[in-house]
């Protein structure tokens, strides 16, 4: 794969990348390879044949020369003997320079010898008739490694004279000595004669020197014609190869590359048009590729695909738009539903006789569960926990209607949950064409006395904890579900709540929460989670159950809405104080005002000095953080709320600011084991807060940092 896509390439890069260019290169390379091999083979064959032929010719000629010599054998022998004798007699010193006058003088008398002239003429005719270069007779001086010439066929001007000599190679000598009646040959190259084939036939010995008839055939002209052939052949090959591969590449370009390029251009155009929203519908069909092969097939398939895609995209666009619209509406519905449930805690900051906390996690965008609580009058608190049959939009619609009806009838029948449910049931049944129903637990607490009147319309059992005891299921009497049947008379019962008692209400989403193996969370685990809470306080219990369900469910999808409500009842002798609020400039020099505000509340509640000091310390660290960092470019305010609640009594301090979002609980703890030189003071403040407070929680709500700390103060 190339590193770049075709779209990103320059023109030159595309050309290099093209199939045509590649084919051209490949064919060229292959042809050159084959050409070189063919030439090499041709030359080898030619050289071998030439060598064999000329070797044989030289041998034949030498043989013929030998036969001619036999005709005049006595005279030839005699003449040879004289030459060799004179050569030997001349001695090494004179031999050394065969061209010197003194040496030539030794042989002067043999230059007019008739035998010499006749034999030379004979050999000359032999040479001419065989197109050889030279035929000659020479004795071999094996000591000095020389040819010593005796007869020579050549023209007088280039003729080797008797007694002249040429150096003899040892390889030559060894070869020649193999001749005994049969001619031998030697192929050699010398500077003087070039490449030549020499045939030799042994004639006789003279004075210990062997005399041979030799025939030379020069091969230089053979080599030259070979070279000429070579470059002519090479040139022809080059022209053929170039033309052939060009033609092939051209064909490939026309038949394959161009159609593919047109297809890819059409694809690019298609993508571009789709991006820019152009309505061109026939990018591939209009190409009209008719190569009659796989490429035409491909273009037809692309055209079909484009048509299918166009239809598909139209459908998808429509469906997606529809889905988005529904999604948006569901989102708004969810917000309306969430907004209909009271979600500010503590819900009644000025009521110190009780505290409560509730939460709902819907399984779908909108759910069928709901909780509700409201003060009917100054002394009556209504608590509702309900679960509508089914899920999703229908359940949510039904839930809203049920909630409104309960709320409305509670205002009329403020004293009796049974009467309220009976009335609500009648109303719901009257218009219930969809056959839906809702399970409801409704309780009305007389705040001053702690008497809780309750009616259960097919809902889960409530869970109750008496002060100092454990959470236990309260098995109350069940009536039929609301909306199930007309004319139901619901019954109610009373529970008397004392100081420190707690009531936990929930929907079946709690005990029926699944883990990935479809095991149910169950009521036992619910009780376990509730009883694991160390500091009894409505939010702690609700958080503990939520956390236990989350840990239990793991990655399993939430199947049902999970809704719960927890009430702490204290009555008149309450540890709760009203929430006190201080709004103050977020400036370090306001620190003593803040601490003064906190200390006043704590001293009134008889807070132990050590706990008070630790709360002061924590509030100081957090307030100074806000004062120093929350409003880097402007001045802002901080709000501090304090209240006490619970048994044992706890103080809860909430610090709010509208500055940049910052969660100090995410700070990494400092390393407190380092030596003084390495210590950095950063993060120590928050670290101390974490150490000294029972809990520290951060949330970012409505554009505010909300930091809540609690500490037991008895």
């Amino acid at each position, binding site marked *: 794969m190339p590193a770049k896509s075709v779209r990103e390439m320059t023109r030159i890069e595309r050309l290099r990348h093209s199939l045509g260019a590649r084919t051209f290169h490949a064919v060229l390379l292959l042809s050159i390879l084959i050409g070189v091999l063919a030439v090499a083979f041709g030359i080898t064959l030619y050289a071998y044949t030439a060598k064999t032929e000329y070797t044989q010719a030289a041998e034949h000629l030498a043989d013929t020369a030998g036969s001619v010599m036999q005709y005049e054998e006595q005279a030839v022998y005699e003449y040879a003997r004289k030459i060799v004798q004179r050569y030997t007699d001349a001695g090494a010193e004179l031999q050394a320079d065969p061209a010197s006058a003194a040496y030539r003088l030794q042989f002067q008398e043999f230059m007019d010898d008739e035998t010499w002239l006749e034999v030379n003429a004979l050999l000359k005719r032999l040479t001419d008739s065989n197109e050889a270069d030279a035929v000659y007779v020479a004795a071999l001086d094996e000591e000095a490694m020389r040819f010593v010439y005796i007869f020579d066929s050549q023209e007088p001007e280039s003729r080797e004279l008797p007694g002249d000599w040429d150096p003899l190679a040892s390889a030559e000598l060894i070869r020649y000595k193999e001749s005994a009646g049969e001619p031998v040959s030697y192929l050699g190259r010398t500077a003087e004669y070039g490449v030549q084939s020499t045939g030799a036939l042994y004639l006789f010995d003279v004075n210990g020197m062997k005399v041979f008839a030799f025939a030379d055939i020069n091969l230089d002209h053979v080599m030259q014609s070979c070279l000429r052939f070579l470059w002519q052949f090479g040139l022809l090959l080059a022209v053929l190869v170039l033309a052939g591969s060009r033609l092939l590449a051209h064909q490939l370009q026309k038949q394959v590359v161009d159609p593919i390029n047109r297809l890819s251009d059409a694809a690019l155009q298609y993508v571009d048009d789709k991006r820019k929203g152009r309505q061109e519908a026939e990018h591939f069909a209009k190409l009209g590729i008719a190569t009659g092969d796989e490429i035409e097939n491909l273009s037809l398939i692309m055209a079909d695909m484009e048509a299918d895609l166009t239809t598909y995209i139209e459908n998808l666009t429509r469906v997606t738009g529809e889905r988005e619209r529904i999604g948006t509406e569901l989102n708004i519905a969810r917000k309306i539903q969430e907004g209909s449930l009271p979600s500010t805690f503590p819900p009644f900051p000025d009521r110190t006789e009780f505290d409560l906390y509730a939460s709902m996690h819907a399984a779908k965008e909108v759910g069928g569960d709901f909780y509700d609580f409201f003060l009917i009058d100054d002394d009556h608190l209504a608590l509702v926990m309900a679960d509508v049959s089914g899920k999703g939009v229908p359940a949510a619609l039904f839930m809203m209607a049920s909630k409104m009806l309960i709320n409305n009838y509670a205002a009329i029948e403020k004293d009796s949950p049974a009467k309220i449910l009976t009335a609500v049931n009648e109303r719901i049944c009257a218009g219930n064409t969809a056959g839906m129903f809702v399970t409801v637990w409704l309780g009305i607490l007389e705040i001053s006395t702690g008497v809780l009147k309750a009616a259960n319309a097919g809902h889960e059992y409530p869970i109750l904890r008496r002060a100092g005891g454990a959470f236990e299921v309260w098995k109350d009497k069940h009536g039929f579900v609301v909306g199930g049947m007309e004319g139901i008379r619901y019954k109610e019962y009373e529970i008397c709540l004392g100081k420190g008692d707690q009531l936990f209400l929930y929907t079946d989403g709690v005990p029926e929460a699944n883990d990935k193996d479809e095991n149910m969370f169950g009521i036992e685990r619910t009780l376990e989670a509730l009883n694991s809470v160390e500091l009894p306080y409505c939010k702690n219990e609700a958080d503990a159950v939520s956390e236990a369900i989350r840990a239990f469910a793991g990655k399993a999808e939430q199947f049902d809405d999970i809704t719960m409500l927890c009430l702490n009842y204290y009555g008149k002798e309450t540890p709760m104080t009203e929430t006190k609020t201080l709004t103050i400039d977020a400036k*370090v*020099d306001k*620190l*003593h005002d803040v601490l003064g505000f906190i200390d006043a509340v704590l001293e009134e509640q008889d807070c132990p*000095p*050590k706990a008070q*000091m*630790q709360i*002061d*310390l924590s509030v*100081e*660290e957090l307030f*100074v953080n806000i004062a120093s960092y929350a409003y880097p470019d402007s001045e802002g305010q901080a709000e501090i709320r304090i209240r006490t609640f619970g048994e044992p009594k706890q103080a809860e301090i909430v610090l709010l600011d509208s500055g940049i979002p910052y969660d100090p609980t995410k700070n990494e703890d400092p390393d*407190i*084991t*380092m*030596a*003084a*030189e390495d*210590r950095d*003071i950063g993060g*120590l*403040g928050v*670290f*101390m807060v974490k*150490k*000294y407070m029972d809990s520290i929680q951060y949330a970012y709500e409505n554009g505010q940092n909300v930091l809540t700390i609690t500490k037991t103060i008895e």
Partner: protein
Amino acid sequence: MTITKTIESDALTLALSGRLDTTTSPELEDEINASLAGIHKLTLDFTELSYISSAGLRVLLAAQKKMNVQGEMRVVGVNDTIMEIFEVTGFSEILTIE
């Protein structure tokens, strides 16, 4: 917070009373920076000190780093609550507390 300062040749004693917090710790820092020249022995008397926050700890750390170079520093009269702060923050390992 009030600071009572006693110098005997190269020994400086600073007795603190009240609260050493974000607003008062700069006073101590200024006092230490101004008085530390030529001092080889620094004593911080916490007998009357009721409260210390991280701002105060920061000043103590800076003072300890300085005195590590030019002599010694000790903290005396530390009450239980402040001792606990020193322990929680690891300052008990750094300071010489008597």
